[in-house]
């Protein structure tokens, strides 16, 4: 009616006021719409990232554990408890109609050794010796000798820095051994007793060179087959999945590239990626840093090249650099000094000539990896496990967070964990007895290792160091895990057989489910609401009196899961601020316009308008404003969201990729977004109208009489 008419007319007449107030309201509505869709989209896509990669919808952990489970959280805070009756729990929970699967888990980090270059070369040397190929023996031996010399040099440098006193006895002995191996007499006598020499090198020297290949890997120990099937983001890149029930390790492609790849090659890759993004070497400090590292770390390449490879690479580099320089160090340095002009050519040359002659990845598919865990009981444990391949979490290939998760089989995980209750110990012993695996006693191990003719060698070389070394081979390999013998394999030794058997042993589902796990992921069926699922699971836990605590993925993923909460808070705060500002400004401008309209309002009062009618008029005006501008803001926000929802927003960093669950971010507005935005705008407008409306209500009819003074 007339009030709406007056309100509209007022809006049109007082254009500046309307523009300011309208602008604010449009902005507020826009902010709410964008914010809401951002949050809800991040929430959905992040939930996809987290839920479908490692967390599942719900995580179970031991009730009353000291630390709350935090899948993406800090390492160290690891007292998340143990679940002993997983088999029973799994059966009960999977019986719920809402639940698709329950996957056992344990997340941990360990120092992992790939076979280092020295190991690889030593194996080649052993093979050559066995084959009686004198020429090959000579080539490889010279390379090994050079490596030992470099190692000796490195350790001497190291000695200068570190305090001799603080070195462990092992370390001290190791330094002495390396020095011994770097003597000409050691190499001169090689042909007389190649196997003794080899064993000395393998057992005493190789471990000293191990630092090069030390990795810190985060892994989830799990029923690998179930994991692969339940988490649909999981997909193999290279190699094969771990055969069901078997031991094995899968490296995340992201980690594989970032950490396992040859460092020089990796840096070249990163430079290439960065240049592809439009960066220029001349102006990018980080690229310059990488180039500098490539130039100074020439040893990463030269160390790995034997004589033949050195010759090939040298020729190629001399040709590329147009120089007669013969020193490989200088050649590599100069070659790696790339610029915007020659980068692509040198990159290609590197991959054509250098890469095939070096170990491009420290660990390759099929390699045996040595994982050094620190068991819960405080003992260092070492297990060897086969690397079956690499995988990625679909859409999250470039995310540091999801990319940090590797996959380890549950049995090996338990070995590493070293956690055993008395029952479990007995049970494991029984299981091992059943599957024909006997604990390897040190004395018998020795006998077995040097069974055929090795004993002879020990006696023959009793005056030489190699023999002494060989006599104490499987030093700290724990009984439960396979001996280090796999890495430093002795030909025909039963230890190798033992390890082989362990490697190919297929564990039954009962064995997998029977042992201890740290947590369990529950994947709900599609379209089951998380709250409903949570309630059902909790009800079951209560009913069965399981000592479990259920966490939804948000809580279980620690800080990352709370990230949405943080954005919510930030958004809520900015909306609050914007509303406060709007409140003040709208209020001010309405007060101004009220004062301007004093006579008009006084006239209306004089003519016979009641106070409440004036109030109503103001409220109608505010309402109309809120509706009109709120709608404009909502429409604008909706179009923006729809636009990006259709074309996607490029996720330009790791965290964004993780948040968006893929390389592009597709925001979407939840259904309740528009009404919420409208109501919020309405409330703000009505509140900011209260004071001016109150002022207007107090204008007396006298205001109409007072004449143009």
């Amino acid at each position, binding site marked *: *009616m*007339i009030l709406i*008419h*007056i309100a509209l*007319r*007022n809006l*049109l*007449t007082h254009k500046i006021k309307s523009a300011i107030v309208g602008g604010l309201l449009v902005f507020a509505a826009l902010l709410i719409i964008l914010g809401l869709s951002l949050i809800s989209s991040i929430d959905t896509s992040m939930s996809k990232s987290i839920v479908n990669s490692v967390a599942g919808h719900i995580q179970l952990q031991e009730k009353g554990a000291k630390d709350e489970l935090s899948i993406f959280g800090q390492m160290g805070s690891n007292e998340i408890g143990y679940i002993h009756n997983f088999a029973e729990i799994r059966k009960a929970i999977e019986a719920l109609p809402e639940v698709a699967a329950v996957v056992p888990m344990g997340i941990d980090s360990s120092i992992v050794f790939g076979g280092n270059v020295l190991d690889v070369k030593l194996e080649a040397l052993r093979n050559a010796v066995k084959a009686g190929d004198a020429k090959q023996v000579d080539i490889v031996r010279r390379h090994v000798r050079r490596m030992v010399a470099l190692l000796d040099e490195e350790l001497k440098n190291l000695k200068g820095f570190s305090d001799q006193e603080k070195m462990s006895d092992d370390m001290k002995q190791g330094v002495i051994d390396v020095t011994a191996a770097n003597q000409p007499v050691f190499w001169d006598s090689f042909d007389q007793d190649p196997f003794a020499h080899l064993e000395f090198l393998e057992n005493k020297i190789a471990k000293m060179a191990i630092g090069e290949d030390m990795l810190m890997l985060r892994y989830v120990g799990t029923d690998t087959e179930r994991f692969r099937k339940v988490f649909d983001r999981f997909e193999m890149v290279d190699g094969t999945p771990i055969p069901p029930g078997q031991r094995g390790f899968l490296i995340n492609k992201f980690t594989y590239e970032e950490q396992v790849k040859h460092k020089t090659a990796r840096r070249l890759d990163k430079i290439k990626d960065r240049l592809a993004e439009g960066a220029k070497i001349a102006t990018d400090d980080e690229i310059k840093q990488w180039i500098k590292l490539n130039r100074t770390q020439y040893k990463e390449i030269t160390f790995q090249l034997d004589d033949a490879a050195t010759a090939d690479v040298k020729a190629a580099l001399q040709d590329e650099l147009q120089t007669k320089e013969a020193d490989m160090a200088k050649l590599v340095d100069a070659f790696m000094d790339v610029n915007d002009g020659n980068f692509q050519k040198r990159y290609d040359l590197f991959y054509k000539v250098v890469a095939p002659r070096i170990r491009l990845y420290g660990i390759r598919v099929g390699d045996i990896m040595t994982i050094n865990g620190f068991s819960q009981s405080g003992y260092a444990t070492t297990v060897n496990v086969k690397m079956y391949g690499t995988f990625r979490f679909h859409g999250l290939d470039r995310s540091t967070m999801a990319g940090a998760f590797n996959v380890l089989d549950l049995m090996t995980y338990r070995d590493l964990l070293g956690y055993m209750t008395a029952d479990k110990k007995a049970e494991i012993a029984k299981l091992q007895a059943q599957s024909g695996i006997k604990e390897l006693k040190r004395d018998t191990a020795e006998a077995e290792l040097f069974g055929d003719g090795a004993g002879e060698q020990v006696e023959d070389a009793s005056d030489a160091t190699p023999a002494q070394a060989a006599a104490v081979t499987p030093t700290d390999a724990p009984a439960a895990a396979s001996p280090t013998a796999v890495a430093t394999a002795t030909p025909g030794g039963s230890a190798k057989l033992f390890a082989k058997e362990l490697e190919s042993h297929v564990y039954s589902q009962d064995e997998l489910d029977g042992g201890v796990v740290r947590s369990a992921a529950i994947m709900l069926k599609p379209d089951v609401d998380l709250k409903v699922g949570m309630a059902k699971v909790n009800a079951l836990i209560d009913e069965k009196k399981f000592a479990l605590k259920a966490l939804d993925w948000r809580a279980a993923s620690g800080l990352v899961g709370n990230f949405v909460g943080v954005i919510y808070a930030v958004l809520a705060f900015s909306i609050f601020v914007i509303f406060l500002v709007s409140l003040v400004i709208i209020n001010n401008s309405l007060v101004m316009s009220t004062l301007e309209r004093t*006579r*008009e309002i006084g*006239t*209306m*009062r*004089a*003519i*016979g*308008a*009641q*106070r409440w*009618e004036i109030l109503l008029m103001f409220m109608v005006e505010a309402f109309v404003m809120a509706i009109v501008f709120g709608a404009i803001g909502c429409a604008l926000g909706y179009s923006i969201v729809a636009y990006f929802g259709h074309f996607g927003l490029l996720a330009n960093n790791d965290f964004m990729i993780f948040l968006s669950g893929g390389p592009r971010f597709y925001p979407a507005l939840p259904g309740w977004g528009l009404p919420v935005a409208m109501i919020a705008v309405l409330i703000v407008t009505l509140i900011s109208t209260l004071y001016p409306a109150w002022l207007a209500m107090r204008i*007396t*009819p*006298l205001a*109409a*009489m007072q*004449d*143009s003074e």
Partner: protein
Amino acid sequence: MHMATTSAPQPIVHLSHVDKDYKLGAVTVSALKQVSLEIAPGEFTVIAGPSGSGKTTLLNLIGCVDVATRGEVVVAGQDTGKLSEGDLTRLRLNALGFIFQSFNLVGVLDAFQNVEFPLLLQKKLNGAQRKERVMDLLHKVGIADYAHHRPGELSGGQRQRVAIARALVTYPRIVLADEPTANLDSVTGTQILDLMQELNREGTTFLFSTHDPHVVSRAGRVVRLVDGRIVTEPDEQSQSSHA
């Protein structure tokens, strides 16, 4: 003060011994002193007096937009001193019409809507009835052609005609006007006065103030104020010259 002059039994306005004081800090200004006055239906009364004599104050009391400090103000049979704010507003809406010196039209509404406004507040007539009534009034004040012009598009005289139509649209018992011609040139002022006189002849009671002697000469009755007091009794002669 009395009597015999007005034969009508029921006066529309009845003031007896009305004082109006304004307090300005410590100072009290007596704007009206012991004012007694009756306005009978059909009168065409002018309140005259020099500036500051209390004309506006008197009209405000009668118009129920202000209250007397002392004394009794009875409008349309109601003692205004005893009415609530809401009742006073209703009294203004139903019994009084206002014409302002500066016209005071609602700027965002056109002539028709301005005139219609009091009817909308009254909520007594439906749309068609309102339209008929409003157009009738616009015809009467001679501005029907401008029904859909906004005040900004009208001259001062035209605006005052719209204002007069608005004051009359509810058929008030009395129309109050504080210097209705003060913001108009003399020709237009005369025309407005002619219109008011004509409407008075058709039955509307007018009470207005002025200090223009020319306007005073056309009044049916003159109430002369000096310093807040009524100094001249209604002029028998001028009243008889009209009614």
